[in-house]
Every structure is written in structure tokens, then in C-alpha cells.
């Protein structure tokens, strides 16, 4: 809050106590469900999802903003949840891999990753599927170059990527038909 001060013009008067700025109350909608929690300001979004919401489908890979295993959607856009604080997601809608399935049916992206063998160990797969989700929501018929660019922030150390490209093409094809 800004308060007018005769000698200094406006000065900033905190409305919160020191304890309240160290631990902050937040509300985040995750996969359509509201979660209200008090979190340490330094808590990363990925830790909030895994530890505070018990949604362990989002993985921590490198923890340095490189590998993309922690990718989730924030208001529909892919972000690395290891490189955001949970407090920054306050009031937003997060989609994790757990939110892709609807009414017991796999999302077409999930189905295609299975059908096209687009995974081996599966550690990077949740992140890859959410990056794919942003791609296909913006571009229903991506070419190979566009697919490569869309998942360039997701590292897979098993597949060599070829089956991932095939899975994404298959998902796009199936979603166009649906």
C-alpha cells in the first residue's frame, strides 16, 4: 500500500507482517480442483504440486531449468515448474499430467504416446505431453520442424526422439479427426 508522506512523497507501507511475507497463503486451481495452501515464499511450483497437492506425475529432472521434465501448463502455456515459485501461480490454472485423462479415458496425446511407443523409461513423458498440448492447441497440423521446435525444451535420454515425433504426429491426426 502506498501512503502519502509529507517529506518523501509516497512511501510504501507493508500491509503484511514479516511472517506473512515468508509464508504466503495461495489458491491455485490444479486440474480443475482448487487448492488453498500456506506455502513458504521460496517453495517451487513443482514442490507445491508434488508435496502440497500430492500430484507426483510432475517430475523433477535436472532442477536447473534445462530438461523440461517438470513442464506443466499454466493458463494453457507450458512452463518449467522448477523455475517458478508456487506464489507466482496464485490465482492461476495449472494442468499436470494427472489432468489430461478425462472420465477414465486417456487424452489423445497420452494414447498416441502409448500407441507410437513414444516413451521408454517414461520419466520425461509427462513434460513432453504437456509441451505437446500447447503445440496442438496452437497448431493442429504441425510439420516436423514445428514439432522439433515445440519440444526442444524437453530432454529425453532413452528414445532418440523419433518415436516421440511419430507420437505427436499421431496425436495431431487423431485430434483433427475427433
Amino acid at each position, binding site marked *: 500500500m502506498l501512503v502519502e508522506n509529507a517529506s518523501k512523497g509516497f512511501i510504501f507501507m*507493508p500491509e503484511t507482517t514479516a511472517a506473512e511475507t515468508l509464508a504466503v497463503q495461495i489458491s491455485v486451481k490444479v486440474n480443475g480442483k482448487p487448492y488453498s495452501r500456506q506455502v513458504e515464499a*521460496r517453495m517451487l511450483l513443482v514442490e507445491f504440486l508434488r508435496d502440497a497437492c500430492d500430484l507426483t506425475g510432475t517430475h523433477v529432472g535436472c532442477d*536447473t*531449468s*534445462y530438461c523440461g521434465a517438470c513442464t506443466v501448463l499454466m493458463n494453457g*502455456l507450458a512452463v518449467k515448474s522448477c*523455475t517458478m515459485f508456487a506464489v507466482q501461480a496464485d490465482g492461476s490454472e495449472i494442468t499436470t499430467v494427472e489432468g489430461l485423462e478425462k472420465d477414465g479415458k486417456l487424452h489423445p496425446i497420452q494414447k498416441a504416446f502409448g500407441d507410437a511407443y513414444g516413451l521408454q523409461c517414461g520419466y520425461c513423458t509427462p513434460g513432453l505431453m504437456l509441451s505437446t498440448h500447447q*503445440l496442438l492447441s496452437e497448431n493442429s497440423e504441425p510439420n516436423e520442424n514445428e514439432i522439433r521446435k515445440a519440444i526442444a525444451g524437453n530432454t529425453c535420454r532413452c528414445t532418440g526422439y523419433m518415436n516421440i515425433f511419430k507420437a505427436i504426429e499421431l496425436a495431431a491426426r487423431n485430434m483433427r479427426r475427433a
Partner: protein
Amino acid sequence: MYPRSFHYHRARSLDEAVAMLGQLGSSAKVLAGGQSLIPLLKLRFANPEHLVDLNFIPDTSFIEEDSTALHFGAMTRHGEIERSALTKTIPVLHDCAAGIADVQVRNRGTIGGSLAEADPSGDWANALVTLDTTVHCLGHGGARSLPLKDFITDAYTTVLAPDELVTEVEVKIPHKGSGGAYVAFKRSAPVYPSASAAVQLTLAGDVCQDAAIALGCVGLTAIRATEAETALRGKTLNGDGNDKTIASAAEAARAAADPQPDMRGSAEYKRELVVALVKRAIQIAIRRARGERVEGVHLYA
């Protein structure tokens, strides 16, 4: 990896953010997109006591056009710039935005944050310095505006006071007959480039009227390769791979580069990269100055 504990302050207006920073002093840092800051906090290379979060301030993310310039709100994300039709009218800006790191980073990182951080390997400063770019700032003493070339003074160093923020980046629309390109070489998508080149040329027919050439990641700040620019001005450019004028400009750029050897390569290797990137950027800029559409020029291997 947890950063050290900090106090979190969510600013609701730019004025409030400035007042917060003034009050909290040097123990505070500004959180914009966080794509550089948060990794540094996690590694505990930076340990601020307070973070002032700009992400909840309304009306700081926008792309607007007037008769002479494009205006970018400081909190405009790289991804928003990449997807904007307005930005495509100045291709060097689209090249830059579309090539920064990866999709996830572009969805968070901001143009204002990139300039305020002034990382020598950052993309925006290098691309924008080839255009007529003004940085608008707000601090305790009020608003001020500076040309980009006077804004960044050294590696990770700007003229910003500790309680001053970037609010807007203004880019003059280049004249008709002007074309530009930004080409960076990265070893993989999420990493910083090993070297980058930005070029903006104005042609009259095939004759180069004006040229701006800047080199990134090969000095403490983006380097304007003025000798390389001189090598092009007033010359006829045919734009093909054997163009001797382009080759001589690229050689002048090699001499202007001042790279440090690091994990991305030796100084010699980076100079070679500069030559190749400058040639490529000039060739694309020529085609664009002639009105040709050239897309997807950003490289990573």
C-alpha cells in the same frame, strides 16, 4: 534445490514496486520472468532477503504500434512477442523472440527483464541495438528514457538505480527498404547461444545505404561492429554466397569480436562462428530488405 528464505512482496502497481524497492534497499531483488533469477537463487549465487514480484502488476504486458514505433511493455513475455503479428513487421525482433531458449522459457521470460539483467549472452540487447531502441524507466525521481546503447554499460550492469525499473521498450519502425536478421548459434535449445549476430540493412536498389551490425556473447556487452558496417555502406550487395563485400564485412566483424574461451568453445572457435553468423545474417537481411519473406532463421544444433 531451495533458494535461501526470502520475504515475498507482490507489487500491485509500478509505483508501488518502486516504493518497495526504495524502502527495502539493496537486500531486495526484482522478480520479473524469473528464468535467469530463479536458477541463480536455487544455486545460491544470489541470496536476496526480499523479492519484489512484478508479475501481478496490470498493464505491463502489451505490444502496441503508433505511427513511428512499436512499444513493448516490460513484462511482455518472449513467447507473446514471438506470436505477435505486429512484431513480424520487424523481422529481426521476431527472429530474436522465436529463438530464445525453449518454449517454456519463452512463456515466462520478459523483454524488460532481459535488458535489465544485461547478460552478455542475452539475446534481446544484441538484436535491439541494431535498431533505434529506447528504454523507458521509472524510479524514485520519476520516469526517464534512454537509448539502449546508453542503458547497458557493462556485463550484468545497467544505469538502473536500485529502486528503478524498466517499464517499456520502444523500437522505431525501420524505413521502407530496410531489412534485418538475428541469427544465433546454440548447442541445444535451452542454453545461451555460443555467439549471435544481428544485422539491419537499408538498401536502395542493390546499394547499401545504411548498416547496423551487432555481435552477441563475444564481449562484455553486445558489440557494434562499426568497421563491418563501414565495409557495407555505399557498396553494391548482390547477396550471394560469394559476395566479396559481405566476406570483408564478416572479416571485420571477426576483428571486432572479443570472445572469452569457456565451455561453449575457444575464443578462436567463437570468432569463426561470428564470421559465419554475420555472413548469414547479412544475406537474410538483404533478402528481407528486398521485400522477400524469410522465416525460421534462428539456428540451434
